[in-house]
């Protein structure tokens, strides 16, 4: 058999002819032989059926591949969405953590500030109490001093009255027609 250019230069026809001889046997030349009684239309329909089956297989393969690709794309999309959601969740978790940290820090600052405020209030109260006490002491001291001064003045006055008791008093100023001087004292005066 000449195999030169089997497919390109007539090889297809040779294969076709071989196929026909496989089926019909070539009139006793060889092969299977004895199929000449076959119904030719049935044979053609057999070829058509096989072509349809091949096309159906191709379509099924294409659909299967398409379905597989669709499923893969869906899975990929789901995976991408899941990863994106996971990323967003992680980012949100970090944000929440940062907010909690900031909140904790703010609370700590607030507590510290509150503590400082309380201490300042206590210190102020203590200062006020001390100042009030000192002021009272000064007021009391001042009042005592004033009281002593008043008593001392009263004592001085009384002492002066006592010292000048029975002494002749001269007027410290003159007025018109005050009478003669020295005045005439009445008896017992």
């Amino acid at each position, binding site marked *: *058999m*000449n*195999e030169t250019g*089997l*497919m390109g230069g*007539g*090889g*297809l*026809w*040779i*294969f*076709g*002819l*071989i*196929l*026909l*001889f*496989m*089926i*019909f*046997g*070539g009139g006793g*030349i*060889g*092969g*299977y032989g*004895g*199929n*000449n*009684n*076959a*119904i*030719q*239309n*049935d*044979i*053609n*329909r*057999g*070829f*058509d*059926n*096989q*072509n349809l089956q*091949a096309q159906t297989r191709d379509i099924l393969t294409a659909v299967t591949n398409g379905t597989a690709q669709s499923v893969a794309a869906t899975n990929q999309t789901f995976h991408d969405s899941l990863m994106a959601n996971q990323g967003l969740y992680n980012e949100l978790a970090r944000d929440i953590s940062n907010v909690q940290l900031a909140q904790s820090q703010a609370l700590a600052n607030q507590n510290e500030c509150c503590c400082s405020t309380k201490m300042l209030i206590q210190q102020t109260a203590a200062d006020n109490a001390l100042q009030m006490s000192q002021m009272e002491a000064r007021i009391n001291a001042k009042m005592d001093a004033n009281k002593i001064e008043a008593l001392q003045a009263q004592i001085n006055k009384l002492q002066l009255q006592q010292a000048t008791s029975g002494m002749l008093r001269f007027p410290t100023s003159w007025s018109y027609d005050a009478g003669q001087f020295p005045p005439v004292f009445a008896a017992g005066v």
Partner: protein
Amino acid sequence: MVNPMLQFLNPKGNNLAETINKFTSTVKMSKNPALALQTLMQNNPNIQSAVDSAQKYIDQCGGDPEAAFRKFADQNGVSAENIIQMFK
């Protein structure tokens, strides 16, 4: 006598249909037709007689494979285009 049509439609347990299916599949998938034919003949000894018959028929038709193929198909009432489609 086994109807070839039934052989095509019911390839299970049918050596002829299986052989034809292997034949067409091997030819379609092969990148080396000579090797494909050699492999087919090794795996299917019955093909050898068909190959010899085909070669003799081609020689009788002046060595033109296409003319021999179309002539034999026409003589047996088979659409040549159907067979060509099988190999595509």
